[in-house]
């Protein structure tokens, strides 16, 4: 028998073992090592890698060979560059999430997850190990592809920096893809289901990103910097070389990518850890910190985009508001999973650690979360709205005041509706047992609110034979906010009443939201109080039992000089 399994059963449990783990830094994440050992025995890996690499090489050579007959080598190099990195992008954005998606879910499905938890590894450590493992795996693909990727460089037409930047970007997509797959995986117990869901989402996102952020934006960037080819999906790495340094360079090539990477990556990280932790843990603080930092960040990005918008400033402001609203709606969905109040574990921890008021506010609790989302959301929408209005007035022009009014009305409607969303979400959560039903209801409410009034309007229009007044019926739909922007400049006779209808509808949403939030608050505090009372009752009962037990011990005649517990107390 050697050290570990030693007689006596280890050290006394009370000696601050909480610190042992952190005091002895581990060399490498054990999960990572294990996954690598497993991967090394997976004989398919090298075959897959070899097949993929040779296929890519052959494809590139074929394209290069055919193209070089009629085209200048520099042109061929650029085309090959686009083709290669488009394919590599596809490989990374499809394979990376899929690899990561199976990891945590397979531990759950394979009944190894609990053994892992019981080792005392924290969800953070597990997540890091899994993340590193999946990233290493996808990294192997990228490394294998690297020599093929250098091929276009040989033709000329692209610089070495452009190739390197493209690989860096590939790395960023790999990180995001792995983080996404992991966050899905952490919520599933079956790895097949996790992979399917991940692939469904990531493939769509991948295509949308390719067409939107790749091909789409390249035209705008080409206007700005003519060196960047219009319609070339892999424009970004070339823009770092070909763009002219300035405010736009920083905004488009530094600030925007940072926001686009950090906001989702951080969210996925916190979300993964929260889904892996037990429900009694504090699963809220991380996501709330993310919200607290990222809402201003996204707002800032939206505001920053306003001045560079080419024409129709009010439309740009509306677009910025819509983007912000989408982000905030996402936040509402995140908060819909919030527990009504902190668990006993969390409470005890707070008391032990002397948690600050802010710390507790960020912790689990439906009302904390809802008020925070509401406050942040109103602040963000107000900022964008005010920025939009100020920009309109500052730019001047004949329609400045009308446009300013348009922006103000639009933002105000959106903000009011957002107030309803938060209130409704909180109310659903306070009534439901879990997190999925409130989210489902929230989605349903959005759909009904957006489309319902228009359907009703269509019906009303049929009944009233297309009188313009029937638009009033549509006023509760948030889409009406866009219609209001049009109304402001119109000269219709019903203009006033239709605008008024919109304002009343917006106010209605806000009032409804506040009322629902109030109801949710009352309900939540009732439930929390009941929970606390139940704990107190149990505690009292246990205490009474203990007291009775002590009394019984005291009755037993004790040896001389031995005092009973009563006397000591």
């Amino acid at each position, binding site marked *: 028998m050697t050290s570990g399994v030693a*007689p006596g059963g*280890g050290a006394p449990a009370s000696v601050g073992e909480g610190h042992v783990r952190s005091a002895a830094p581990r060399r490498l994440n054990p999960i990572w090592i294990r996954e690598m050992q497993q991967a090394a025995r997976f004989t398919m890996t090298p075959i897959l890698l070899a097949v993929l690499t040779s296929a890519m090489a052959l494809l590139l050579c074929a394209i290069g060979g055919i193209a070089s007959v009629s085209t200048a080598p520099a042109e061929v190099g650029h085309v090959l560059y686009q083709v290669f990195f488009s394919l590599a992008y596809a490989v990374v954005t499809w394979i990376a999430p899929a690899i990561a998606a199976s990891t945590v879910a397979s531990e759950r499905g394979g009944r190894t997850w609990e053994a892992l938890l019981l080792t005392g590894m924290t969800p953070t450590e597990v997540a890091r190990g899994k993340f590193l493992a999946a990233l290493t795996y996808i990294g192997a693909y990228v490394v294998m592809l690297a020599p093929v990727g250098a091929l276009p460089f040989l033709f000329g037409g692209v610089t070495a920096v452009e190739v390197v930047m493209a690989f860096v970007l590939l790395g960023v997509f790999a990180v995001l893809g792995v983080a996404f797959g992991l966050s899905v995986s952490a919520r599933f117990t079956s790895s097949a289901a996790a992979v399917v869901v991940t692939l469904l989402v990531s493939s769509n996102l991948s295509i949308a990103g390719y067409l939107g952020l790749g091909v789409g934006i390249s035209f705008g960037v080409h206007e700005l910097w003519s060196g960047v080819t219009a319609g070339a999906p892999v424009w970004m790495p070339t823009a770092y070389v070909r763009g002219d340094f300035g405010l736009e360079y920083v905004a488009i090539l530094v600030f925007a990518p940072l926001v686009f990477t950090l906001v989702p990556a951080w969210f996925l990280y916190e979300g993964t850890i929260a889904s892996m932790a037990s429900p009694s843990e504090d699963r809220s603080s991380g996501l709330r910190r993310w919200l607290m930092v990222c809402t201003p960040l996204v707002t800032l990005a939206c505001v920053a985009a306003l001045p560079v918008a080419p024409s129709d400033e009010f439309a740009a402001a509306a677009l910025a508001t819509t983007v912000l609203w989408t982000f905030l709606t996402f936040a509402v969905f995140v908060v819909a999973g919030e527990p009504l109040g902190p668990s006993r574990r969390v409470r005890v921890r707070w008391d032990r650690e002397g948690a600050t008021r802010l710390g507790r506010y960020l912790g689990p609790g439906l009302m904390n979360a809802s008020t925070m989302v509401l406050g942040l959301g109103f602040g963000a929408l107000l900022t964008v709205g005010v920025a939009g209005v100020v920009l309109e007035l500052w730019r001047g022009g004949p329609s400045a005041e009308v446009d300013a009014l348009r922006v103000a009305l639009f933002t105000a409607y959106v903000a009011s509706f957002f107030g309803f969303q938060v209130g409704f979400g909180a109310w659903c959560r306070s009534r439901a047992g879990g997190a999925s039903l409130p989210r489902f209801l929230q989605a349903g409410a959005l759909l009904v609110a957006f489309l319902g009034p228009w359907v009703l309007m269509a019906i009303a229009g049929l009944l009233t034979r297309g009188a313009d007044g029937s638009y009033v019926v549509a006023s509760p739909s948030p889409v009406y906010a866009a219609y209001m922007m049009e109304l402001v400049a119109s000269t219709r006779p019903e203009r006033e009443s239709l605008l008024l209808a919109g304002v009343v509808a917006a106010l209605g949403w806000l009032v409804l939201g506040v009322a629902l939030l109030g109801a949710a608050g009352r309900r939540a505090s009732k439930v929390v109080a009941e929970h606390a009372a139940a704990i107190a009752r149990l505690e009292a009962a246990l205490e009474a039992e203990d007291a009775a037990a002590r009394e019984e011990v005291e009755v037993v005649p004790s040896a001389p000089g031995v005092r009973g517990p009563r006397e000591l107390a």
Partner: protein
Amino acid sequence: MNAEVPGESRFVPAIRVRHLWHRYGAQDVLRDVNLEVRPGEIFGFIGPNGAGKTTTIRVMATLLEPMAGRVEVDGFDVSVDPERVRKVIGYMPDHAGVYDRITIREYLEFFAQAFGVPDLAVVDAALELTDLRNLQDRLVAALSKGMKQRLGLARILLHDPKILILDEPASDLDPRARIEIRDLLLELREIGKTIFLSSHILTELSDVCTSVGILERGRLLVAGPIAEISERLAEQRARDAYGVDRAVAPPAAEGTAEAEGGPAVGAEPSEPAGPSVTAGGAPVPGSARRRLKLRVLGDSRAVVPLLEGGAGIGVVEALPAGQLAVEYVGDDRFVADVVRYLVGRGVGVVAVEPERNELERIFLEVTKGELQ
């Protein structure tokens, strides 16, 4: 939390379950379970399928949040300090998986590192203890169930936990492996581990356990050392027979939620939940009726008259192949007296077997065969 009350022998129970309730959907799976396991005990947890054993065990192992009640392991509340509890327990689930494409040694080294064990020599020790050394380079996925069970045991020994919680550790083992596991458990107890295990196989438990608890339909019916329970039941039977003292609920009282064992709140609040249940393993005063099996040379029927009517002897029954079943009241000394007496009368006593299935009898007596 771990503080002992000075001046008396109060200890921190290895496991203390108090008024534990659990519910799946609308079904109460555990109803007011109370039990206490002292350090150094081997506690056997028995019950029909679906009684709630695994549920109780998972709460102890911090994997399931108790809905009501308090569960303490080594003085730490499982719902407040799961991290600390995890450090002192080794939990082996009833059906665990293993990783693909990894050898036994790698598997154990991985867990040793995950546990944060500074020295990987523990892997060798664990391999040694579970007799897996010769197989250390085999892939774990290719192991038989029994081997996996051993591997599971090796895994939970790596961080040197004080308390082992085993859910049906012998369920997939062959008879030989079962005996080996039993010896291993005794060995582990020797080196100071407390062991809590659930099982269906009663004879196996009665061989190793210092105490047992019987769970049925989410209620703990009885708990304590086997001899003591047996004693209590005999008393109970006597009381029931004479119709006295019905105030104390009989074990199978219809409809009452608290069918003895760990007394429930409400019923007998004055009685402490734990200690009365598992008060030591002291020899029992010989008031319970027991059975003994004897094998003698020659015809056993000839021996019956010798014993019948003797003080402390009840029904004596002659069985085939020179065997005798003797009912008696008394302790081991009494048995020795009987043997001495028979030998003195020239009877060739070949074998004396105490009743092996005492636990089985208890089990049948307190459970009603209802499933949930």
